[in-house]
């Protein structure tokens, strides 16, 4: 942690941060039962990945990573639009957004 006093942040720090955020996302998906919160956690994971991408892009001196992040954002927007529509439909059908109350789909 000697870099704190310096004037540049090592890449490992960024990567660790993105890893931590990703983990929090995973945990969120696992422990919550509210579909919307789970969805948010997924978004969180996406952003963690984005952070990693931007980090590498910046430390490797190339824009490709940033372009990928751009794509991720676009696709995330699409995903949210559809996903939320689905959640709304589920709510209309079952009056709940709790994933463990929606369990008809099993063998």
């Amino acid at each position, binding site marked *: 942690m000697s870099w704190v006093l310096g004037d540049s942040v090592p890449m490992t720090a960024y990567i660790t941060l993105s890893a931590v955020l990703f983990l929090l996302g995973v945990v969120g998906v696992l422990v919550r039962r509210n579909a919307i919160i789970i969805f948010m956690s997924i978004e*969180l994971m996406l952003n963690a990945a984005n952070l990693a991408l*931007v980090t590498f892009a910046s430390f490797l001196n*190339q*824009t490709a990573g940033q372009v990928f992040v*751009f794509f991720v954002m676009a696709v995330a927007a699409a995903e949210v639009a559809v996903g939320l529509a689905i959640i709304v439909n589920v709510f209309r059908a079952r009056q709940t957004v709790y994933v463990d109350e929606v369990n008809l789909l099993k063998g």
Partner: protein
Amino acid sequence: MTPIFFLLFAAVAVFSALMVVLQRNPVASALYLVLSFCSLAGLYVLLHAPFLAAVQVIVYAGAIMVLFLFVIMLLNLRKDVEAGVHRTARQLFGWLLGLVLAAQLYLLLRAPWGLGPQGQEPAEAVQAVGNTQAIGLRLYTDYLLPFEVTSIVLLVAIVGAVVLSLRQGKHEGIEEAP
């Protein structure tokens, strides 16, 4: 200066992410998520990606999270009741797995790992605060096809969302006047 800002943003991001998971109130979670996204935008600025920072705020904070809030309000969800089927098991295993994964990632990060080859683009072109143009060039030359495909994905998503939100019989989208 940079490390200070980094620590600041990182702290905020992690804290708010944690709150997203812990908060019982969906709206609060959403707001914390917005906060976390905003601090990520700050980190992007530190990483010489101001364009992405702005886009991050516009797309995530400005559009996606608003959509989340919108739905939460539409369904008028207040506090979560965290009961439900085998709740304890869920909590327990969830956190347990999270910890295991954390340990693994820690080992992974401690292990020596090298970087790939440096990019061709000159450092200043990328580091330059005005790398919007660089991104644009990349986007419209090397990644033109993915770009177009993404647009198709978006179109499909629009159609899908509209179809999903059409109530049977009446033709009104989600955002008809409540």
